[in-house]
């Protein structure tokens, strides 16, 4: 029957309807497995799901010239101009934004699909292949001006820009756009949302990138090593303050003050970059305290001790290191033994 209908489709409307139905069924039969096997990106699924994309609006001008599209004239000229300026500022700050305002009876899901398809079709981005744009589609039902809503579509490289990310967009939708749209004030909702996006991307910090494995390892090491070494360094600096200028026996293993200073400075020089790399707050505290102690020691305590020593006419006598004493003692003992022998 169907073959006969194919042959005689022009004979009657019934034959024509049969042919069309058969073609549809064939298309569905072939297309369904292909769609199921293909990648499920938002854009492709939206295009596949919606036949509304077939009549997508055309871009009227370059984005550098026009970023606000209002084909149904829901916003007056002045409002459009103001929003245009805000959109340009937002784009300069890092998010290439385009706003499309329309009257449509689409459901939110259909409007989302429309927004996604339009984003792909128009290539909303700051430069070719950057994929860093944001499309805001405002949909106002024809029968209910207070039932409007917005849909967002963005690229893979759009977020985050400081504090602006998908979660923040959702907050802006709930806190700013929806209340104004429910009042029927489309313009105010959109323009405040645009400014808020602009404000957040300029003035509100985002999350810092998390530590990688190397940084995490150093961070964990510093958590223990920095305080321990810092306390040792502090003691090495501070103890001589209370020993009347004499090098204390407790620090005899460092031998001299000069070696101690070289050690402490080296410790600080190594610790400071590690602190920044590993973002260790406790190491910052250690650097701070040891640094202050070092400055106090070099700048104030030691000169004061030297002044006191000068005033008391005390001479600084350089003695040979202990190793020399040991050597000379050994030589002496050998000589003594030889004499005995």
């Amino acid at each position: 029957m169907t073959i006969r209908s194919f042959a005689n489709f022009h004979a009657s409307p019934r034959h024509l309807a049969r042919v069309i139905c058969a073609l549809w069924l064939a298309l569905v039969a072939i297309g369904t497995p292909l769609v199921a096997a293909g990648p499920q990106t938002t854009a492709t699924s939206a295009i596949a799901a919606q036949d509304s994309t077939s009549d997508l609006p055309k871009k009227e001008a370059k984005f550098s010239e026009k970023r606000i599209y209002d084909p149904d004239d829901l916003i007056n000229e002045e409002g459009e101009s103001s929003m245009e300026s805000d959109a340009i500022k937002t784009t300069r700050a890092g998010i290439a934004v385009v706003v499309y305002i329309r009257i449509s009876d689409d459901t939110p899901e259909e409007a989302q699909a429309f927004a996604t398809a339009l984003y792909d079709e128009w290539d909303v981005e700051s430069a070719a292949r950057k994929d860093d744009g944001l499309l805001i589609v405002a949909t106002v039902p024809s029968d209910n001006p207070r039932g409007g809503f917005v849909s967002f579509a963005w690229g893979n490289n759009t977020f985050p820009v400081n504090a602006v990310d998908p979660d923040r967009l959702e907050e802006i939708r709930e806190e700013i756009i929806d209340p104004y749209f429910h009042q029927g004030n489309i313009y105010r909702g959109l323009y405040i949302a645009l400014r808020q996006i602009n404000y957040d991307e300029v003035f509100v910090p985002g999350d810092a990138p998390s530590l990688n494995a190397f940084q995490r390892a150093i961070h964990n090491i510093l958590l223990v090593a920095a305080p321990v070494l810092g306390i040792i360094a502090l003691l090495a600096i501070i103890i001589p303050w209370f020993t009347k200028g004499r090098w204390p026996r407790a620090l005899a293993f460092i031998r001299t003050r000069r070696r101690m200073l070289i050690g402490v400075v080296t410790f600080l020089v190594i610790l400071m970059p590690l602190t920044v790399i590993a973002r260790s707050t406790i190491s910052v505290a250690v650097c701070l305290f040891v640094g202050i102690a070092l400055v106090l020691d070099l700048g104030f305590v030691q000169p004061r001790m030297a002044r006191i020593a000068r005033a008391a006419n005390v001479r600084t006598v350089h003695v040979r290191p202990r190793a020399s004493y040991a050597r000379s003692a050994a030589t002496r003992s050998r000589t003594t033994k030889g004499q005995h022998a």
Partner: protein
Amino acid sequence: MIIRPPVTPSLVRTPFRLRNGHLRPRSSRHTTAPTVHRVQLTGRAQSRFQQLPSDLVTIVPQSGVHARPGRPMATRLKLGLLIPLVILIFSLVQNLDQVQVSPFHRDESRWIGRAFFIQEIFHPFSNTWNDYYITNNQAPFANYIMGIGQFVFGQDISIGRIWDFNYTQAWNELVGAMPTPSEMDAGRRTNALIGAIVAMLVYMVGVRIGNRFGAFIGAAFLACHPLHILMSSQALSDEILALWIVSIFLAAMRFARRPSWQNTTVMAVLLGIGGSTKLTPLLLSFALAGLGVALLVRWRFFPGFSPNPKHERDLGIKLVVQPFIAYFTFVAVFPWLWVDPIGRTYRMFTARAQEMESQGNIWGNLHVATPIDALDRIGVRLSHDYSTTARLGRILADILSFNYQPPSIDLVLGFAGAILFAVLVFRKGIASQYGLLGYLMLCELGIIVVGLKADFNRYHLPIAMIMAICIGYLGSRVWNVLGSMQAWRVLDLIPGIDFVLTGSKAKATRDRSFPRGLRRPQVRPQTPSSAPGNVHELPASSD
């Protein structure tokens, strides 16, 4: 050993301390008493040292200072403390008077809004210090001060919102960028106090280059300056910058007197902190390093031109290290810089330069094209727009009910003072405290003149401060000239008043000739029987 008044014996830094009228060693290491050659004592110290053996101590009473053994030192009013305190209170009262009156400036929102930096400094790796507009556009130290002020005045230092200059006040109020009245009040009161401290420090600079009278005049000039009062009654950062600049002046003078490593460190740290407030003091550190190199070159290759080669060598070496310590401080107090200190510093300087350029372009009437234009603008600002003498003249005219608009002579006085100060610098040399102060003032002035691209009133505040110092020096010279002319004796013509000169210069003053045409009054020695109401003791004028 020389003990200079007014230190008390307990504060004398020697290994010996005065105990029961005898010098005792502080520790067991110093067992013998030192040889004391000459001791200058006054007041309570004199009475305490009376018991020392005469062969050990020779008591030389300081001329011009009257010892009052029976009176404790703490209760004595000391002019050295009293006058700065008077200046502080005088300036504070004027500033606080305008706190509620001064118009709102949008920048106030920025300084108050970032007051939470003081909290975040304890979390140097938090999101606050990420790379974004708030951190990469302004150095944070003024925000720290503002945060401390907010905390002291009981405000909540939470994350504030910053004024967006792209939009109107209505929008910024909507987004929460407008500070609340209480926050604004706290920020302004903080600045009022800082402005008063600046006036007090200007007095201290004035005392070091002149005398108390001149220093008082200079500080009072600044305290009454309309621009200073305006900046001190708004929550902006410019008074904080002025605070660091005048502190740098003081530290530089101390450093020039004694170029020790302590003084080097103090001055460099102040330069770094000042740079962390408004960047320009960092440039001052480079200027100082340049001077250091010049001094070292003179010491090494032209020692004949150097009056004190060793001093200049010390000064030169320690001036050369200034930028390093200052930059280290600058980076240390600003966690945003830690990740890339040099690159981000460069970005910040370029961003500030661009912003100033764009400010000049946005406000066309404020655009400053060349340094000559900048000088012209400074002249207009500090003589026509903001003038102490015009303000005081207006007040006087109002009191006397004259309908008179007095002219401004601020710049004339400032120039006169600057010329006299230049003569002083020429006489004492660049390596003296006067020379270093003059060099720093000149550099600060030069940085402002060259860098000024938008003629905002706040950029002129350091110049007003420098002008106050110069006027203070002029006042000092005038006071000295009047003193040498014995001009005070003119007042002897008033019946019932006799002036008795006391102090180190009394004899010298008596020996000099009396102004022509006036009768020389008979100077009577001060006796206990003299009626206190009729005898006025003049302070000994200092050089």
